[in-house]
């Protein structure tokens, strides 16, 4: 617990630096008011908004006001939707969580068996096939995979719907699109972590005791290989974030990613900031939790 709190405190300077970068970008480059108002606004409207929002104050004062607004979850209003930006972002969260969760399941189902198999059958034809597939999965842009899935499974055969959110059927193609790239990365990492463990003394001991190979692999090696896998999964949150932006756009999935991309295109700064902060905090927290789980799973790791 102490460790958790310590690390939580360490994230504060990181968050502060991020807010400072965003603040400077938004306030110093160009006129913030012109980003907030539609292009048809008159000069008087601009000036009154500038005064009302305190843009005529000195910069440090502005930064402080900005921070205190952030803490209260006040990112301003979206000019596109005319509602509170933070509420808008929160509304989109469940759809994105649903997609992210389903993609992680797809990634796990693909990568754990393949990763173990290619490590156990090292240098075989199967290993070559799996590692080759993993490289291909990494090289293929996910939005192209998504479009190809739509082409073959939604347009040509009409098994799945083309886009939108609804029942389980709607979830399949987006989850495969987002899950495949993550699976490719995870397969590679699981393979190398299994290979490392298979080379260790206790595995040799288990084998020399005459244990069946299946038992050695499943019980001795895999359990230990699971520990880095937890970290590997947590490290995918970054990939997951980038992936949701693209996947949600391809499949018109009404989540946070789609909202953020639209907001950037429209320069709806209130929504852009609310969404990026929420995602940033989420990523930082999930990394922290993963770190903690990692330490709980393997007591040999020292708290420092």
């Amino acid at each position, binding site marked *: 617990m102490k460790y958790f709190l310590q690390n939580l405190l360490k*994230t504060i*300077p*990181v968050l502060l*630096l*991020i807010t400072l*970068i*965003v603040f400077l*970008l*938004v306030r110093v*480059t*160009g006129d913030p008011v012109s*980003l907030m108002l539609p292009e048809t606004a008159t000069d008087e409207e601009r000036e009154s908004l500038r005064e009302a929002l305190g843009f005529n104050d000195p910069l440090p004062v502005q930064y402080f006001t900005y921070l205190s607004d952030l803490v209260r979850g006040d990112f301003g209003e979206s000019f596109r939707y005319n509602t509170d930006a933070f509420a808008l972002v929160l509304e989109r969260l469940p759809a994105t969580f649903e997609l992210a969760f389903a993609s992680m399941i797809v990634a796990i189902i693909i990568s754990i068996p393949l990763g173990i198999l290619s490590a156990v059958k090292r240098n075989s034809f199967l290993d070559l096939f799996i590692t080759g597939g993993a*490289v*291909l999965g*990494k*090289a*293929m*842009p*996910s*939005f*192209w995979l998504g*479009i*190809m899935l*739509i*082409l073959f499974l939604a*347009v040509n055969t009409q098994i799945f719907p*083309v886009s939108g959110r609804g029942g389980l059927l709607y979830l399949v193609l987006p989850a495969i699109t987002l899950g495949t790239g993550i699976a490719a990365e995870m397969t*590679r*990492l699981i393979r*190398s972590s299994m290979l490392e463990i298979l080379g260790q003394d206790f595995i040799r001991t288990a084998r020399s005791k005459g244990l069946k190979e299946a038992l050695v692999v499943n019980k001795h090696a895999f359990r230990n290989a699971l520990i880095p896998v937890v970290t590997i999964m947590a490290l995918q*949150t*970054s990939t997951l*974030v*980038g992936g949701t*932006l*693209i996947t949600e*756009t*391809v499949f018109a999935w009404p989540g946070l990613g789609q909202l*953020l*991309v639209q*907001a*950037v*295109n429209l*320069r709806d*700064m209130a929504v*852009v*900031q609310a969404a*990026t902060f929420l*995602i*940033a905090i989420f*990523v*930082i927290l999930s*990394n922290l939790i993963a770190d903690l789980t990692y330490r709980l799973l393997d007591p040999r790791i020292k708290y420092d």
Partner: protein
Amino acid sequence: MTSTIERTAIAENRNYGKRLGKLGKRLLKSKTGLVGLSIVLVVSLMAIFAPFIAMYDPAKTDVVHRLLPPFWAEGGNMDYPLGTDNLGRDVLSRIIYGSRISLLVGISSVILAGIIGMFFGLIAGYYGKIWDFIIMRTVDSFLAIPNILFMLIILAVLGPSLTTLILVLGGTSWVVYARMVRSETLSVKERDYVRSAKAIGAKDFRIITKYILPNVISSFIVIATLNVATTIIMEASLSFLGLGIQSPDVSWGLMLSDGRQYVATSWWVATFPGIAITVTVLGVIFLGDWLRDILDPKIKD
């Protein structure tokens, strides 16, 4: 005595001619390395000689010939080997021209990131203390949240353009280089030949450029090459989202975004640019992996 040490140190780093010959021999042995290099060469030639290879102006619209299928499909012909898109533009010519943007953005943002990262990495590693602290905390902050978030904020403020895209991609990925260069510098700095050079009063600049840089450069090249692959995908992704390259410029990502809308009726518009991206990125990854095996056997993944 010191001069002998200095000379051996320099000689160690200067056998480039011989090493290049060896590299060539080992490349012929590595199949994936050879495949990677060939792909990269073909794409580069395509980019350089695009105006001579392409049959059409990539931006020229021709509504009469819109959405023609590739030559082997019914209704297609050799005038447009890979078909045309929704505005009647030749898909093959657009793919050939698209390689320019991919390579231009990929390589220039990696160079930008490399220079920034190298600079801060050397300073953090060599001077240590407060410099190290400030630089590494900044690096941590960048690593703590996904790059794409920084990119989106900057793109939202500045608006999409080729220059912004290069700046954004380069400005967010420098941290990887900074971290690597810093840790290599820390280990090289304690070696005997660096210490003796310091003892005879060599200037910091000379030590960094003559002794530290040559030791850092091979890991640097490996990471930079693999980073080109990531950057090419990022460029395509951002252009696909409408935040990167804008029409009438041609980018594979932009082509995919046009093609997506016509996927139900005209599969070729979205299929071929995707293949182009995948093959190019595969080539760069193969080349990078091979370089890693040769130049820097100690970094694995």
